[in-house]
């Protein structure tokens, strides 16, 4: 297994969730890669630390799928960067991702919070 393959696997594991997180971040306004990392970290209270090796492939894939658009702009600090913006298609995708996510959380939750009475006895 090369290092590259490990990266890929991590991307796959995260894929559905990471896509949703990125799209959600972009809901608040166009953002560049670094900005997305910072935003996710802040919002999650330093818990979610997105790796660049997952972030950039994901961004490029989302763009290919037409869920985000990118353009090169100057940032407020005069730094040239590539800004990503969510598209209408991307918003629809986010809604469906969110729906799925909620269903999964609910399903996992109902598994996790059932009291295992039988096994205790």
């Amino acid at each position, binding site marked *: 297994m090369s290092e590259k393959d490990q990266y890929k696997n991590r991307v796959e594991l995260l894929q559905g969730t990471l896509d949703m997180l990125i799209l959600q971040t972009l809901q608040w306004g166009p953002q560049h890669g*670094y900005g997305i990392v910072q935003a996710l970290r802040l919002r999650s209270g330093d818990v979610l630390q997105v790796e*660049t090796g997952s972030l950039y492939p994901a961004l490029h894939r989302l763009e290919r799928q037409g869920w985000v658009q990118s353009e090169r702009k100057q940032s407020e*600090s005069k730094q040239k960067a590539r800004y990503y913006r969510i598209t209408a298609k991307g918003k629809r995708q986010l809604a469906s991702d969110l729906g799925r996510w909620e269903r999964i959380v609910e399903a996992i939750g109902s598994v996790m919070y059932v009291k295992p009475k039988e096994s205790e006895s």
Partner: protein
Amino acid sequence: MRWFPSFGFQRRKRELQEEIDAHLQMAFADRVARGETGEKARQAAAREFGNIPLVQDVTRDTWGQGWLEQLGRDIRYALRQLRKSPGFTIAATTMLAVAICANSTVFSWIDGTMLRPIPGARDTGDLVSLQRGERNFSPTPPFSYLDYRDLREQNHTFAGILAYHHDWITLTGGAQPQRVYIANVSANYFDVLGIKPVLGRFFLAEEESRPDAVPSVVLGYSLWKTRYASDPAIVGKSIEIARHPVTVIGVAPAEFVGAMPGIRQDLWVTLDPLGTDVWRMTHRSGGAVWLNVIGRLRPGVSRGQAAQNLDTLMHNIVAAYPDDHLGENRITLDPMWRSPFGANGYLAATLPILLAIAGLVLLLTCANVATLTLVRFVSRRRELAIRQSLGANRMQLVRQMVLEGVVLSIAAGAAAFVLTSWTSKTFAWFFPANAIPLTFNGSMDHKVVIGIAVSSLLAGMLCSALPSWRSSHAPAIEVLKAESASISGGSRNRKLLSALVVAQIALSLPLLLCSGLFLRTLRNLAAANPGFEQDHILTASVGTNIAGYSRDEEKVIRHKILDRLSALPGVKVASFTDWIPMTLSHKGEDAYPEGYAPHPHEALRVYHAEVAPRYFESLHIPILEGREFTPDDDEKAPRVLIVDQTAARRYWPGQDPLGKKLMVWGRPFTVVGVVRNSTHMSVNEAPEPMVYMSFFQQGYETIVQVETEGNPADLAPAVENAIHEIDTQLPVFDVRPMRESTQMASIFAVMQSALAGMFALIGLVLAVTGIYGVVAYRTQMRTHEIGVRMALGASRVDVLRLVLLQGLWLTGIGLALGLAFALGLTRFIARLLYGIGANDPVTVASVVMLLGAMSLLACYFPAHRAMRRNPVTAIREL
């Protein structure tokens, strides 16, 4: 960007780099803002980002263009590998280029002739040429105008049927008379072919046979360009053809040269432009059978259906006019690529076979290059093993190695392309100066380019696929662990090497055998006695008939010529004829013994020629019975004939032919002599009955024939001068020795043996170097082992035997396989051979011996070298 993904790829790569730079920059700026110091902040930002190239790599993978980049990388790698072994690269590329060029050259000839039978015409695949009577290899024009018109008007399977007849004529009226090839054509000629004029118009339907119409002519493009200086106002002007004024109505496009494949027509007139040929337009037999006919099939109609349709119509015509259609009248249709009218009939019998032989050469070359490739991969086994252990999978390795072969073959294809653009034009070299306006050559169009591309890619795959597959197998650990003497690439590689050598010998044997048979055919043809003198004869055509001289003028001129030439120093005998033997042309006619009732479907065709007194004397053809023609056998005297032995035996078996009568053109001719058989078309022909008529009774063309004392070519200027002294306006052409004219009869044998010989030589060199290479390589691999053997007491002879046996074993198997292969193949060339069987034992034995001896020699050198090694150094060598 979709079409040029590589450009987009470079741009996107750059943008990704910028994006990452921006990221790092911003992370750095943030850290500085938080109070970290410069260098520490930079390092921390970089650490946080991670492995930059890796991020780039996985990001690029999402673009879906990774394979392209990978291909680029593989190609660069392949180029680097090939550059590392220039010897192999140059040798393999050269061999492949030569082999591909052999194929593409022959294919370009096929492409320029058979695949483009009528340049400029629309959809030539729908055109068929019509033949009546027995199928014939070189037929004479088969239809009369009335028969043709009936077929044209009554059929329901053709979109159109055209007819033409062509011959030489002289353009008069200018500063210089010019001899040109003119065609009398049906009015629909250009329409059926689908050709549009560049100037003016073509013929109208009502102009076809109306005798009172103004005579009009369509000029060929090159004639218009050369003789009339591309005059844009030529339409409507009057030009003079054989002293008759004719109005130009149009100019044909540049690429169109006529409806008969391989023959150039310079200008076109209607069937009876002057209204003077009413007889020919209103009869159905004899001299009125003068038209070649081509039809365009209706869409959806097959050749078989059309033939059936025409056969029925012809049957009705025969029933209505039985006396005009004695003999065989069946109609056969041929596609234009093999039409017996024109050059394609001959070429279709020769070129495909040459292409097949060239194909063998390419296979053989692939086997040879594959051997080299395998040896090369074996020597690279360490590198392959390292790459394998670094994670390359087998497919990747194979792809990489095959790509090297493909890169080689692309280079070879490019070289072959450059070579072929020259060799395609060499086809015309085979044809000596002759009296036929031949105009064809190879062509280099998209079909040839596609052919080169496909064959070079296939060859590249073929050369590298097997060796790569084998080499990618190598157990990496063993290879890396033990770089020992025992590894010569494993026994599987050894088997593959042996198989490749056997294949090369087996493939080169049929090549050698074919070329041997062709060469002996050529020698037999050259040595065969044609039955007439060729060496001291000079012939010259005098265009009296085509220059518009009247019959009386012509008669006077002919007698003057004969008188002057007879008196010329160096001339032994002067005579006339209107036909020269062995020039791919002949004249044929139906002939019946008087009172003879032919069976249905019996064709009593004879060849005929009109010859003057002393013709037989000058050609040394002995008169067996009766007499030769005399000057008194002229138009006032009764018609007379001299027949050859074949005709005499056929019509009057067991009787004395003298005094017998033969009906030709419905007129009786009395036989006054019998001459020995001589060759008409080529020495390997089946003898056809020949009748000679008196030149002064029936002669049409005027060809002077003189027997000279010395070299006939030396006398050519004198003969030409003597004729011009009579009339400076007389066109004199095709002045050449008989030997030169009769070369036409063997051009296809020359072509076959020249190419087959060249291909066989290539095959022999490849096979011999192939076996030498493999035996030398294997012997080198066994140096250590041989050293041990010698140290343990093996003699030098033992070593020699060891190595030789190995080579001989391979040679033996190759020869056995090749022999079986060759004997199966020679059937296909049997038709082209003369004086030799397709499995001629002498040729087979000598070819096998030649190949065997050469292989033995190739094995001897490595064996000798192994024998002379010092055992001590040999053992040390690993």
